[in-house]
């Protein structure tokens, strides 16, 4: 009997998960379909760009600086063993633009802006603001969801670029200013080794994909949250957990596609 119940429970959860993926896909399609006003009335998107992008800048810059400084220290210690300290600039820059910039910035974006989006939309639902909008003949997907979606998609690559730039500066501070690696080789090796298309553009593509996934998860969880305090808090937690896992899994898939055999 209990075995039957377990199988039933597993089946129920599996069906539920597939059903949610279906609903989320439909939500994504509607978001794209009703995106017109986000561009026609671009000030709506700009307002959201401020709260998602600009308000995330501090955490991105501080985290980028420290990650860059740690990379500088660890990189120097490792490269020193092979007498290749001069390649520190290359190592710091490649680590950041290929991987750490897009991934860590996306993880920070999910926990800072993604959770805020979910909580905001969940609370709008709980306080009947979304129903009120529907009753005023205003489509909430077009008015609330789409501008936030595009703000997230636009912000993410810019934040990742900012993270990488500040990270490189952090690596410079530790490697060149503090440890004393040759400044000329630090910058020149970086310049010659980092390829615009293979490294920077691939990093931008990654962060663009993360922007889509994280923002979509955050908006869907908020829109789908049960309209109670418990429902909103659960949705906010799910946003951070699901986004983080999705970022890491997607990163592996994209890295495998972009860098295999290079």
């Amino acid at each position, binding site marked *: 009997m209990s075995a039957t119940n377990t199988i039933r429970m597993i089946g129920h959860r599996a069906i539920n998960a597939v059903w949610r993926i279906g609903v989320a896909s439909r939500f994504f399609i509607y978001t794209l379909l009703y995106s017109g006003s986000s561009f026609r009335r671009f000030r709506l998107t700009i307002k959201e760009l401020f709260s998602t992008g600009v308000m995330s800048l501090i955490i991105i810059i501080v985290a980028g600086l420290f990650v860059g400084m740690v990379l500088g220290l660890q990189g120097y210690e490792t490269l020193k063993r092979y007498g290749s300290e001069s390649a520190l600039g290359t190592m710091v820059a490649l680590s950041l633009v290929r991987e750490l910039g897009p991934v860590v910035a996306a993880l920070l974006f999910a926990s800072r802006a993604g959770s805020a989006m979910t909580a905001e939309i969940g609370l*709008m639902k709980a*306080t*009947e*603001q979304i*129903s009120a*909008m529907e009753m005023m003949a205003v489509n909430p997907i077009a008015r609330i969801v789409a501008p936030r979606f595009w703000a997230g998609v636009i912000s993410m690559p810019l934040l990742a670029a900012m993270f990488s730039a500040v990270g490189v500066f952090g690596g410079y501070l530790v490697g060149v200013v503090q440890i004393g690696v040759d400044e000329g080789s630090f910058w020149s090796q970086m310049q010659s080794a980092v390829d615009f298309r293979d490294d920077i553009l691939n990093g931008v593509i990654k962060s663009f994909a993360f922007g889509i996934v994280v923002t979509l998860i955050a908006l869907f969880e908020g829109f789908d949250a049960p309209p109670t305090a418990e429902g909103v808090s659960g949705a906010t937690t799910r946003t951070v957990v699901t986004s983080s896992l999705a970022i890491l899994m997607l990163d592996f898939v994209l890295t495998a596609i972009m860098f295999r055999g290079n």
Partner: protein
Amino acid sequence: MTASALVEIRDLNFAYDKRPVLKGINMTIPKGSLIAIMGLSGCGKTTLLRHIGGSLKPTGGYVKLDGQVMHELGRDGLYVMRRKMGMLFQFGALFTDMSVYDNVAFQMREHTELPDEIIHDLVLMKLHAVGLRGTQDLMPSELSGGMSRRVALARAVALDPMLIMYDEPFAGIDPISLGLVGDLIRRLNDSLGATSIVVTHDVQESLKIVDYVYFMAEGVVVAEGTPDQIRASDKEYVHQFVHGEMDGPVPFHYPGMDYRADLNLRA
């Protein structure tokens, strides 16, 4: 549909899953009237309001608004109808990221091409009508419950709707605001030439202002009449409700096991 009826509800049935909530509701709401739908919490009042607004589809029967069967309309048709409606939600449902001014201006900006100067004048006129012109720069979090309700009322009538629906407009507000909101509902209905439906369980306040009352219990209309007829009604349910008696057709105790058995006492 009679010529003067704005809303016609015929044999309306609705069930959540398999639990019936509305069981054969019939109502005719004439143009220009202010009617109340009363009943205990959970009797189906708000569900009925959602059918009139087109948010729910009935399992049987129909709601006809201004000649249109609501559940047969597509999204665009529904939105066209909703532009002619205003709705006051239970706790106002003001947009918390916008000022009072922007809340009232919201529909004007979304649905009209009016220049900012005209929107400015219209917003101030609507706010003046509810006595809150001075709050235009405040955020919803800075308003009291009664003030939020009045701002939401100004927003609901922003585009001069033909039908205004109120979901529990008197819930949780102080006695002064209570009288004020009641008076505003009546005055706005008459000055806009609108038709209003008030869903409430505040008997005394609503009987003062409405033209006609429907009493609902367990998904059916159990009584109806003018406020005077309701006050004089000898129907047990209406009498208990109007006079706020603890026991009657609506029992004080929720059905449960035998009390002695529940306490494990011997018979």
